[in-house]
């Protein structure tokens, strides 16, 4: 941790998150992954939206943006598009990313723009006192679902894969080393990378659903998470009620900003050689 401490805004710590909240573990894993890659602080931009998870960039000593609700990916797309040499990281929550920011999420994935998105999924809207989110498991209690949530929840990893993301992984706050490795790989991937970090919210999800303390919730992750490599050898009935962790999808594809730069260079060549004439000129009119 000491070598990664330089990436923190120490004067801002201790952070605002509740005792036992997993968001700190995820932030720590991200910072350690960045320290391992030895990224230059001035070349990293961390963008976030609104929510508990989106407080994270405030504690990180990079160029950081705290934007409007759900629009973290839209702002990040702008940053990446104008300065493609920057490493852009988005830290977002399940409510921020899948509810109000759902459209931004699928379109960023479709473009395969080189952004690393870390979705801290605590299954609830923590900041506003525990309303259910699109990631709240069916039957769980929230402020706005006092008799249990009757909606089905998203499978974010499969959504990202279907929308076109080229690196998709999932880990939990319990599996901190795995999370660090996956974030490192996601940072190295040239394209849209999604790491879903399942974290515990002992204050709202845990208390309302009688899931116990932060430790009990971490044990719950330990029991219900199955590594995808181990799952291949397991019987389907044993996997019921479990979720997969590990690297779920990794298939590099052409990246948006690289393609765009190529198009610009191609057009510049074409118009630099322009000798005059009507037909070519018509193409260039605006």
């Amino acid at each position, binding site marked *: 941790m000491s070598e990664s*401490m330089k990436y923190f805004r120490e004067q801002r*710590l201790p*952070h605002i998150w509740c*005792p036992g*909240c997993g968001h700190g573990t995820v932030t*720590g*894993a991200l910072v350690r992954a960045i320290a391992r890659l030895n990224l230059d602080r001035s070349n990293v931009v961390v963008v976030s939206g609104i929510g508990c998870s989106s407080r994270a960039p405030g504690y990180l000593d990079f160029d950081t943006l705290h934007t409007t609700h759900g629009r973290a990916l839209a702002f990040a797309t702008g940053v990446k598009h104008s300065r493609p040499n920057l490493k852009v990281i988005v830290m977002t929550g399940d409510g921020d990313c899948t509810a109000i920011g759902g459209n931004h999420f699928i379109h960023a994935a479709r473009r395969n723009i080189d952004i690393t998105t870390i979705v801290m999924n605590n299954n609830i809207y923590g900041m506003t006192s525990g309303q259910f989110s699109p990631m709240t498991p069916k039957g769980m209690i929230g402020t706005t679902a006092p008799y249990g949530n009757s909606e089905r929840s998203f499978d974010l990893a499969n959504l990202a894969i279907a929308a076109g993301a080229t690196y998709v992984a999932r880990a939990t706050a319990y599996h901190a080393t795995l999370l660090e490795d996956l974030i490192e790989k996601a940072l190295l991937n040239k394209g849209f990378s999604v790491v879903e970090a399942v974290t515990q919210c002992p204050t709202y999800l845990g208390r309302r659903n009688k899931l116990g303390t932060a*430790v009990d919730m971490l044990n719950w992750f330990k029991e219900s998470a199955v590594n995808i490599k181990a799952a291949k050898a397991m019987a389907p009935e044993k996997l019921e009620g479990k979720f997969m962790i590990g690297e779920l999808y990794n298939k590099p594809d052409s990246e948006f900003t690289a393609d765009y730069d190529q198009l610009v260079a191609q057009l510049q060549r074409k118009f630099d050689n322009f000798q005059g004439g009507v037909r070519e000129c018509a193409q260039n009119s605006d």
Partner: protein
Amino acid sequence: MSEQKKTFEHVIRERWCKGCNICVAFCPKQVLALKNGKVTVVQPNLCIGCRLCELRCPDFAIEVHERGKPESVGIDAAHRDYGISPEAEHD
């Protein structure tokens, strides 16, 4: 002659610790304990240096260092003067 056993020391930033009990519960050797809502090291000689406490601590409040290994140069929050308010340093 057998190799000398590695020993570890713990850096605890008490001001950052919120006493969530995660490090204590997942320590495989019962090195740590909570005292007055803050983590303390009770059996430092049992530590095997797995760093699970450091990895899982949501508050970055604990660090494990191997004794006799050169420390990496960096800001160590354990030796920070917290008498100065954060706002005074923030420009």
